[in-house]
């Protein structure tokens, strides 16, 4: 019961500042897939750390294995070698404190926007055998807060097929934020949006992160996006992915794309990727 109460208190309000985001340690991780009998190495001896509350971008060419790394951090897969730890404890499975937003919003078409955002609270409630009225009420308040945060309060009763791509991705973001995550894992979350929507949502994400201060791990192949959002950019090689560089970016937020400092960093990162022009 005490643990339950604690869990509830911990997730009291979505936008409230946290005691601190999660610390993620990736230690000498190698991973391979079995493909038609042959082993296909995807990650090679990858090590890095995400400090509590830090915004880290993982940048690399398409198909280099970044998304695989992300699934390991989320606990959806376990690494072939090495270890992934959250706050010092090995990650053995998925946990609502580390929420993933994928490239496709993947909303459940049979649920309304409200129902989709409420999946987390509902699924976690199933862990405890009873349904409390107060608990339900609190979950509804958190859902309302999350919807307001992404500006979709008016669409709470809409079904996913009635939403635009940008709105759907916002719902996916609200579905993650409602759980009050310690780590937000983003897998090219804006990859499929039109460029105007992408620019707007990048700004919104930076603001959200500044308010809430959870740790963020952003996978992207967009150099500009990585530099615009992250405090540290970890650059990966082609598959099998290994870390080839770490670029620290201490430019203050809100950042602007045409900031000369970002332009210089962009050149540096592109050079690391062998794309110097």
């Amino acid at each position: 019961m005490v643990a339950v109460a604690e869990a509830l208190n911990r997730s009291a309000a979505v936008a409230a500042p946290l005691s601190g985001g999660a610390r993620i340690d990736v230690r000498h991780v190698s991973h391979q897939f079995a493909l038609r009998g042959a082993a296909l190495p995807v990650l090679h001896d990858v090590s890095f750390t995400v400090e509590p509350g830090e915004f880290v971008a993982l940048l690399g060419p398409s198909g280099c294995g970044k998304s695989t790394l992300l699934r390991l951090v989320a606990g959806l897969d376990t690494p072939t070698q090495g270890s992934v730890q959250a706050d010092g404890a090995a990650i053995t499975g998925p946990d609502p404190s580390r929420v993933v937003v994928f490239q496709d919003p993947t909303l459940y078409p049979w649920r309304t926007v409200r129902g989709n955002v409420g999946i987390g609270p509902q699924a976690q409630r199933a862990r405890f055998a009873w349904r409390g009225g107060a608990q339900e009420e609190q979950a509804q308040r958190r859902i309302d807060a999350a919807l307001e945060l992404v500006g979709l309060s008016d669409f709470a009763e809409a079904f996913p097929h009635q939403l635009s791509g940008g709105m759907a991705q916002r719902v996916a973001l609200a579905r993650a934020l409602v759980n009050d995550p310690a780590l937000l894992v983003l897998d090219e979350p804006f990859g499929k949006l039109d460029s105007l929507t992408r620019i707007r949502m990048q700004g919104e994400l930076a603001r959200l992160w500044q308010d809430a201060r959870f740790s963020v791990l952003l996978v992207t192949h967009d150099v500009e996006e990585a530099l615009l959002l992250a405090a540290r950019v970890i650059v990966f090689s082609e598959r099998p992915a290994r870390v080839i560089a770490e670029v620290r970016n201490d430019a203050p937020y809100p950042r602007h794309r045409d900031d000369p400092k970002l332009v210089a960093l962009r050149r540096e990162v592109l050079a690391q990727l062998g794309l110097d022009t």
Partner: protein
Amino acid sequence: MSTQFDSIAARGEAGDTASRDVIRATLIAGLAALAWLTSAALTEWWPSLDDWPYTNEFIALKLLLAAFAAATAIAGWRGPSATSATPTPTPTPTPTRIGAWLRAMPWLLALALGVSAWEAVTAQLEWLPRPFFAPPQALIGVYAEDYPRLGTSVVHSFGLLAYGYVLGAAAGFVTGVSIGWSQAVSYWVHPVLRLIGPLPATAWLPLAFFFFPSSFSASVFLIALATAFPVAVLTWSGVAGVNPAYYDIARTLGARPAFLILRVAIPAALPSVFVGLFMGLGASFSVLIVAEMMGVKAGLGWYLQWAQGWAAYSNMYAALLVMALMCSGLITLLFRLRDRLLAWQKGLLKW
């Protein structure tokens, strides 16, 4: 012919096209009234080669339909003309019920022609051989005189079908979900399903009547078997086809297996499950009738058999009509349920 744009642009023209539609619908309603009236006159003054009971009731029914068509025509005529005299902002002033009746009028007209033709070739001309083809008034006779037996048969058939279908659908659903979800269950159950499933349920008939204590329980088993196979296969395919990303999302949000099955796999598979339930319902009808013809001493299948034994062909036609209404009604019910549960889907087939 004016396009939609034109009719929106010019309000007066829009009123014109609307009233033109109403005039046509009213005209058809008038024609339907006339057709039923003529049909009644034919029955009255064109003598049939044999004396058929219930001919007077038949005429009365026709006159009733003629009166109904005429009333609809008048209501359709008066409704819009009364409002078009005083222009109103609402473009469709016809009350919806009269509108629905007006839309049914072409059918009523066709029915008048069809019934008259049927009557002519059976009663007046006797082009169709006598005992095997019955005129429409004979059906009225069956419904008027034999309704206790027919009613009991419907109740029996419905009860048997409900038992078998509900049991079979439940068994098929559970089987389908477990095969789709668990590799171990799939390993053991899938081969059995592949071997037994395609076998027509009626092939079990002789064995079933031997194994089961009563012909009723045997029939329930056969109907359940026929229903379960399509439901199981389509539920299975629905569950197996669920986007794996749905599971990843739920798992990262803290979902446990019960949530994944009940709240992710089953809702996602539901469209496919309903295809299975629809196919199962069709299969269950055919097994129901065969089972009632072969062993059960009640129900519509038995009624058909009994009518054949007495060469009472009008009873057979009457029973077939009842059966058609019952099956169609049940399928309508299933589709209504689906429309309600799958309201989130776009582009549903309207039954």
